[in-house]
């Protein structure tokens, strides 16, 4: 963390502590021998078996990706619907009070309020994203 935005004493202390806690693990000495043994075993394995195993793995990866994609789409759709309902409900609740104070301008006021809120949220999201990218 040293070069990327350490700006407090806690960050510095934590950086040093993390360096100590997350030391790179070393390979066990038996690793090379085990790898050699596995290679020799595989030499005798049927190529078709290897291919079948890889195909199964590939299918599993595709299923996982598909499931993640569907989950993200559901979350996005849910958020959009929720936000739309919340905005509609807010407008219905606020309308009588706005009419009494602003008369026929009330619907226009709500529309412009919605636009302003949308622009603000968009800018905040964009700023957050750019800010994090540059840190």
């Amino acid at each position: 963390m040293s070069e990327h935005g350490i700006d407090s004493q806690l960050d510095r202390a934590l950086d040093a502590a993390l360096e100590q806690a997350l030391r790179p693990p070393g390979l066990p000495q038996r690793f090379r021998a085990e790898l050699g043994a596995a290679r020799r075993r595989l030499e005798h394995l049927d190529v078709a078996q290897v291919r079948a195993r890889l195909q199964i793995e590939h299918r599993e990866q595709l299923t996982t990706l598909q499931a993640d994609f569907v989950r993200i789409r559901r979350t996005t759709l849910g958020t959009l619907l929720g936000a739309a309902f919340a905005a509609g409900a807010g407008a219905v609740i606020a309308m009588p009070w706005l009419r009494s104070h602003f008369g026929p301008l009330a619907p226009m006021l709500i529309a412009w309020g919605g636009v302003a809120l949308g622009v603000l949220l968009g800018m905040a999201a964009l700023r957050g994203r750019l800010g994090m990218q540059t840190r």
Partner: protein
Amino acid sequence: MNTALGRPETSDAEVLGLLRRGAREQAFARVLEGYEQKVFRLCCALLGERTQAEDAAQESLLRVWHALERYDGRAGLSSWIYAITRNRCLSALAHRRTFDSLDAPEWGEHSLEPAADEVLPNASDGRVQQLRDLVELLPERQRQVLRLYYFEDRSVSEVALMLGCPEGTVKTGLFRARAALAALLERRGLADPSYWQEMTS
């Protein structure tokens, strides 16, 4: 033949030359010299569990061995090896999720505790374990980036290469991990810098 933690010294051209001369065995030996530690560290960062990481590293290197004859140098050797390793780890993670959903025992229980032959100077200090436990609570992607960042001696470019993503994404991941960790410390009353300074002094 690889630098302590930095980029391996095994060059693509050297391995390609050996392969063209039909010296596959020697080419693989060069790959092992340059990359076996890196592959293992990548597996450790992605899987967070030593035994699984050893298995994944072994299988990744076996795949490299099998595919080595077809390596033509179009992709960088490191990118190619890391892509094979990431795919193997993704499969392991997908399997783990399946087992987790069937209420299998916790995989991450022993996480990356050092092996018997690795002695940490301050291993007796409970704070090391405390911090490791806190890192385990971070979301998966943040955890992976944070681990690899420290495993690779704080090199953002190396982490990006190993994870196959832009450096900006790594920085974003680190920023979020740092923020999440700070929030966790705050919530647990551990946000006193001197507490962590004592651990490293």
